[in-house]
């Protein structure tokens, strides 16, 4: 399986992380999204006319939507699926349009109504915090239950990267516990802005 990848993209990381925790190897092809805008090159447009990243290619199959990629990667791993996943995949797309946009604005200078992007990001974070607090009251730590599903993997990157876009996460204790649980998953991989748990967190 080939992933056309950009190292700083939250959506690309979503797929790298999913594959890593499933133990499925991905062959990464670096695309120079910034500064060369290679995702809009003729070669990449031939693969994905929308000109977006990530792109996942498995033989003749080409997927260009990250939610579809998560479903595809877990097609044979039903423990990573829940009936509530779809609503959270839609929610994750909203996180990308708010917190993700604020991040691109702050890091790469993208045009954006930055105040509006941050404000709708904060609204989404509060919703996430309220839901995860309810889950804790029910004794479970993930979005749809006691174990993680594609819902958690989809919502994690833009949430954890919110500070890159000027949105702090200090005020969300349930969210922070949830992020820590995801960072503790076997096979977890990091990306710039999302650190692995330090060994001191688990002294021998």
């Amino acid at each position, binding site marked *: 399986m080939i992933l056309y990848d*950009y*190292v*700083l993209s939250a959506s690309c990381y979503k797929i790298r992380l999913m594959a890593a925790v499933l133990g499925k190897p991905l062959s990464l*092809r*670096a*695309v*120079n999204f*910034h*500064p*060369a805008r*290679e995702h809009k090159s003729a070669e990449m447009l031939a693969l994905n006319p929308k000109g977006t990243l990530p792109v996942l290619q498995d033989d003749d199959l080409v997927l260009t939507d990250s939610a579809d990629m998560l479903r595809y990667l877990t097609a044979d791993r039903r423990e990573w699926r829940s009936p509530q996943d779809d609503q959270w995949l839609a929610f994750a797309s909203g996180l990308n349009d708010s917190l993700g946009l604020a991040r691109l604005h*702050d*890091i*790469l*200078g993208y045009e954006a109504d930055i105040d509006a992007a941050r404000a709708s990001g904060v609204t989404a974070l509060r919703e996430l915090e309220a839901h995860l607090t309810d889950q804790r009251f029910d004794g479970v730590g993930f979005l749809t239950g006691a174990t993680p599903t594609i819902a958690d993997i989809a919502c994690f990157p833009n949430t954890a990267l919110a*500070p*890159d876009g*000027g949105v702090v996460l200090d005020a969300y204790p349930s969210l922070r516990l949830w992020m820590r649980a995801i960072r503790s998953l076997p096979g977890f991989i990091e*990306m*710039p*802005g999302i650190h*692995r748990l*330090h*060994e001191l967190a688990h002294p021998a």
Partner: protein
Amino acid sequence: MTAATDNHWYPVAMVSGIDAPRETWLLGKKITLGRDNGACWVRDAAGNPLTVTERFGHLWTSPGQPNRALFTIPEADTPGRRLVDVGSVRVKCSPLRAVENFLDIAHFPFVHTDILGAEPHTEVDRYDVRIAEDVDEVWATKVKFFQPQAAKSASGGITTEYMYRVPAPTCAVLYKTCPPRPGEWDIITLFVQPLTEEWCEVWPWMALYDDASTMAEMVSFQQLIFMQDRSILENQIPRKLPLDPGMEVPTQADMTSVAYRRWLKKIGYTYGAQLVAA
């Protein structure tokens, strides 16, 4: 703002990235830049042209009268090197903090884990630092550090040798062991555009010997490294770089940083700096 700040060269764009005219910031003031008939130009807010030069893939300007020509990197011109335009990343930190972080080795195992450093190899051996009076630059030499993956072209852990050079207040040049060509130095630079005293645009640029990696892979590697630093930089306190000894206690590993701060004070460069003890 003083002449000590104005009369330096600053990077403001990647030459290959200039298409339509655009606005940006330099030292707290708006400037406009663009290209007409192949020649790049920069104007201040009043529309007056500023002096420009194109070098190392970037467009440089100065709001004042530069007291000397832009520094050179003769090694970068040797044939066979690949010149890498890494692009830019904006960081809410003092431009001087961005340079100082680039000069620091001790954070590698903790921030660039398993790439530029790894526990338990955390010790920074003694190295040489001097302010080269003849060229008025800061130099650190004989820096050695164990690195799991020193470059995109490295295929395993090696002890890397570094030389650091600060040829201008907001620019640093790193000469580093070149994994595929022992005996040559890879060149990695950090050119920092001070947007304001606490906000900067960072333009890394590289001149590497690497015949195996794609350009996208080399760019990704450097962006990954720099973005690992960004969140640390945005959380450093005090926001401005203290030039006077205060609450911080430097260690042996911080000799380059100490020399950089002393040199800034010596040349009177205080933009993004704090002069009262923290």
